[in-house]
């Protein structure tokens, strides 16, 4: 069992009102320059995050979220994640994610005039990400 000094506080907030607090040992998040990990006593750090997964290690086990971007601030013994969206793995609607993946794939394949390719690709990335995060739990 890890020492209690190995643990630190994490606050996860989203604009739509999620506000959750955890006592964690490790955080992994998709930073601007790739995934990064945070352990206790990390240096002060601010980064943007991309679409991807956030996982944390708590005393009660691992937790996963699918996020579509935001910010992370690490300061002293607390970490704040400001996520645009954060869907807990167990709440992801598989059917919806699958449907939006298919829709985005189809649109990209058809490639009609005036298609916002960027946006479509982003949607596809988000859908694939949600599917992947959901697959972590059974």
């Amino acid at each position, binding site marked *: 069992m890890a020492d209690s000094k190995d643990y630190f506080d994490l606050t996860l*907030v*989203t*604009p*739509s*009102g*999620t*506000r959750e607090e955890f006592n964690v040992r490790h955080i992994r998040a998709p*930073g*601007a*320059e790739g995934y*990064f990990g945070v352990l206790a006593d990390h*240096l*002060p*750090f*601010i*980064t*943007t995050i991309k679409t991807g997964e956030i996982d944390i290690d708590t005393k009660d086990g691992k937790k996963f979220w699918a996020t579509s971007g935001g*910010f992370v*601030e690490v*300061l002293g013994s607390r970490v*704040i994640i*400001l996520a*645009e969206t954060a869907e807990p793995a167990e709440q992801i609607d598989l059917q919806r994610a699958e449907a939006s993946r298919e829709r985005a794939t189809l649109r990209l394949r058809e490639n009609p005039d005036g298609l916002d390719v960027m946006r479509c690709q982003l949607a596809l990335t988000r859908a694939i990400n949600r599917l992947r995060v959901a697959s972590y739990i059974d």
Partner: protein
Amino acid sequence: MASLKHIRQRIVGISNTRQITRAMKMVAAANMRRAQENMEKARPYSWKLRELIGSLAAHTDRDRHPLLSKREAERVGVVCVTSDRGLAGGFNAVICRRTQALMKELSGLEVELITLGKKGQDFFNKREVPIYRYFPGVFQELNFNQAISVGTAIAEQYVTGNYDRFYIVYNEFKNAMQQNIVCEQLLPIEPEEEVTTWSPVEYIYEPDAAGVLQELLPRFVNIEIWQVLLESFASEQAARMAAMENATKNADDIVKSLKLQFNKARQAAITKELSEIVAGAEGLK
């Protein structure tokens, strides 16, 4: 004097109206509570964002960021936030009037109007004021994506230099009884003076301070819009609640006075009949 039947019909009619206004009041009250909760939930995010921007802006050159840079104003956008539905007392009228006043103040410049909510759109359409862009129905299904699409559209106009400044006029939620009209500058963003409580920590930035700020600013616009939408929605519900409360009270008063009238008329009719009978009996003597 109105006939008994006529008065009775009016009593029934007004009682029905009262039932409707009472139900609407209750619905508005429930919506308001929900909106208030949403508002409170959205606050931590926007506070934190504001704090971050304040500290980052102090460390970087503001002219490098299109959303922070100040320009000589030539073309100005005015965002007018009203509701989609009426029956909310003076809620929309005050906003529209304030918007008109603001447009007059800015009359030396090229002013364009953007409306959120159907009521403002109707108001300015009727007065043949051109609306540059409108977003009707945002309140019908209020979610963060709405704020993103509005915020992105506005930020884009600013960044491309189409507009040099944006104002926003909306109702701020004070409490259930009170709404404040707020008219403020939306863009360029005025970062708050550096927060004194901010500890002088040297952060590691990824990719770098300017890059983080670049990402933060457009999001900040979205969050501001989101906050405004929530405030406006809560205010709308509060205003409707008050309006419906008044309407219910009014209906109560009218029903009361109609009942009095009805009873008076009934009594008069009885008295008349009685005196007719008495007079008839007298005549037979």
